[in-house]
């Protein structure tokens, strides 16, 4: 085990909002690992997959340098995701990362984290799900994450990947939350491209995990063992089983609702709204936001006013924020990097009965295809 590097513990608020920042021109993988450097992580467990690998390699280097206390390369994603679930139960801060097919391989484990009330951070570098074999960016896997019970943030760029990762630890470990936080970005567009990222000093770090102030007891033999039940729910009584499972699912849902204020605090709101008065709106998340910003600028050059709602948090979903921002909208488009259009579905369900706007069923690109601004502009003004 490497010696721990001396860093000064500061509050999440100080680290995220108050500490002076300096700019660096770095990739998304570097931004994520720089966040982990400042996150006081105890255990990181890695398994390679493109485009995620570089991040967990860099986090391995952080272990060698003494910024992380334990690290290893697991046997596969089920092994990696299970091992951090064991570590999280024991009260240490832990994280892992994956992409498309790897996420799908570990999905049973991912969906078990919330039910076990495990604070941890899971980084997702989105990639297509096979088949046919491809390593290209496409965020279809986030559709599967939406119902997994995890808190799910979707970063637009390298700066978001840095900030949301740090925020993820702070949100995850709040007593009234006690849930895993997944932080996603679109692979390659963010992970492998460089951009300016503003970061606080590497001499600062988050406070350690305070595991005894969370919602469930730790598995560490520091509290008296009790039998979980005289009649374990799975066996004799279906009625007890139904009731326990239903109540627990409601509790996870309630924890999501309680997380709203913390997600909002640590990532500065669940949405960002540009040109709120515009009647033609783009609703987007992830890299589609960056392309939409450029389309918006081009539309302004053409003399047309377009608004943009950046959805930062997919779970909890910004229901009230979206309804308020779309109240006066006449036309909404939802550009996405996936075929089924999961954000479009979310937007329609959220605005149903709350907006008169026509919601276009697109535009969407997938399989790794980029999103030209011309496509966004064409969809914006299609009906005119």
């Amino acid at each position: 085990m490497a010696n721990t590097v001396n860093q000064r513990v500061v509050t999440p608020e100080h680290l995220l909002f108050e500490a002076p920042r300096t700019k660096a021109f770095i990739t998304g993988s570097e931004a994520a690992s720089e966040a982990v450097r400042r996150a006081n992580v105890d255990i990181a467990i890695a398994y390679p997959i493109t485009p995620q690998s570089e991040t967990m390699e860099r986090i391995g280097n952080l272990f060698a340098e003494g910024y992380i206390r334990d690290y290893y390369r697991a046997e596969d994603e089920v092994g990696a995701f299970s091992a951090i679930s064991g570590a999280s139960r024991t009260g240490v801060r832990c994280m892992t990362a994956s992409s498309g097919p790897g996420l799908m391989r570990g999905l049973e484990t991912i969906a078990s984290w919330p039910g076990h009330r495990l604070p941890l951070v899971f980084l997702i570098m989105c990639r297509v799900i096979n088949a046919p074999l491809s390593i290209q960016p496409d965020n279809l896997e986030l559709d599967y994450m939406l119902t997994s019970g995890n808190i799910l943030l979707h970063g637009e760029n390298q700066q978001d990947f840095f900030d949301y990762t740090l925020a993820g630890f702070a949100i995850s470990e709040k007593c009234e939350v006690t849930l895993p936080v997944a932080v996603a970005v679109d692979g390659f567009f963010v992970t492998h491209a460089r951009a300016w990222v503003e970061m606080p000093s590497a001499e600062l770090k988050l406070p350690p995990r305070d595991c005894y102030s969370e919602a469930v007891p730790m598995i560490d033999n520091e509290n008296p063992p009790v039998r979980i039940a005289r009649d374990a729910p799975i066996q004799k009584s279906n009625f007890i089983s139904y009731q326990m499972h239903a109540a627990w699912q409601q509790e996870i849902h309630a924890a999501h609702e309680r997380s709203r204020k913390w997600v909002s605090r640590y990532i500065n709101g669940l949405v960002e709204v540009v040109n709120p008065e515009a009647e033609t709106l783009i609703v987007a998340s992830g890299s589609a936001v960056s392309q939409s910003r450029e389309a918006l600028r081009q539309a302004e050059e053409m003399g047309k006013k377009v608004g943009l709602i950046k959805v930062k948090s997919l779970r909890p979903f910004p229901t009230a924020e979206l309804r308020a921002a779309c109240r006066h909208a006449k036309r909404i488009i939802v550009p996405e990097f996936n075929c089924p259009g999961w954000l479009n579905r979310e937007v329609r369900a959220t605005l149903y009965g709350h907006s008169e706007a026509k919601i276009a069923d697109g535009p969407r690109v997938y399989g790794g295809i980029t999103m030209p601004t011309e496509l966004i502009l064409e969809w914006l003004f299609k009906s005119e």
Partner: protein
Amino acid sequence: MSKAMFKMTTAFADVMPAEYVELVQSGPFGQGYGVADLGSFKELIEEHPLCAGCGLALAVRLIMASLPTPEDTVVVGSTGCSSLAFPQIALQNIHSLFGNQNAVASGLKRALKLRFPDKHKDVLVVAGDGATADIGLDMVMHSWSRGEKLATIMLDNEAYANTGGQESGMSPEGCVLYMAPTGKKFKKIALPEIARESGCAYVASVTPVQPRKLEKAVRRAILVAREVGPTYVQIFVPCPTNFKFKPQETLAKAKQREKDQTYPLREFITPEAQAYLAALEGGGKHD
């Protein structure tokens, strides 16, 4: 765990469930009890729901009476018959998923080591043959190859008993079971040999027919896992429900398999583990 923590608030003493009061007053925590003391103390397991004559239930009862320090033991289980018993065992125990027990235990053990570097906190994996030799084999083997300091116990009833008696990799060759309508086509997976070759410092196969031998294997596995490396104990636990014999014949079935060498009992100890055990057992502390 501080043993002082395991006591009742006086004001609640008269409303606590009777078996909880017994556990506090005459449980095994901090007492150093073993299998020979069964009947004289309150056992960790309470009213298990397993079938009459269940070999697995007997093995679990014996394992629980064999723990060197139950107050500092975490059990990681898996889906199967044993997962029905563990909610009724007064130990910190985890059921995560089917097959991922050794991976969960790896993270758990490492985290315990980080948080309590100077304490022995035993992590014991207890799972069935399906969980250990089939669906979880990669995670079991990798935990051994990585040298994770875990004691892994397989409760081998030679079938997927909890789902109604389907063939597992540990079913005997030729055995007719669900999903093997014309008999199993390959031999039992040689997990003790795989364990030995994958880095386990201590490997044993035992049956509940000889409780003291089972106790010795479990204790050795836990003690060696503290200091030396991963360990593996395979316990034959005949299943009357799925193999259609009478509940009272369970031990006779195990004895017969031991006698005709179709379930050979073995023990493998690395020289390092042998030296470690000799130092411990020389004092007569753990036998």
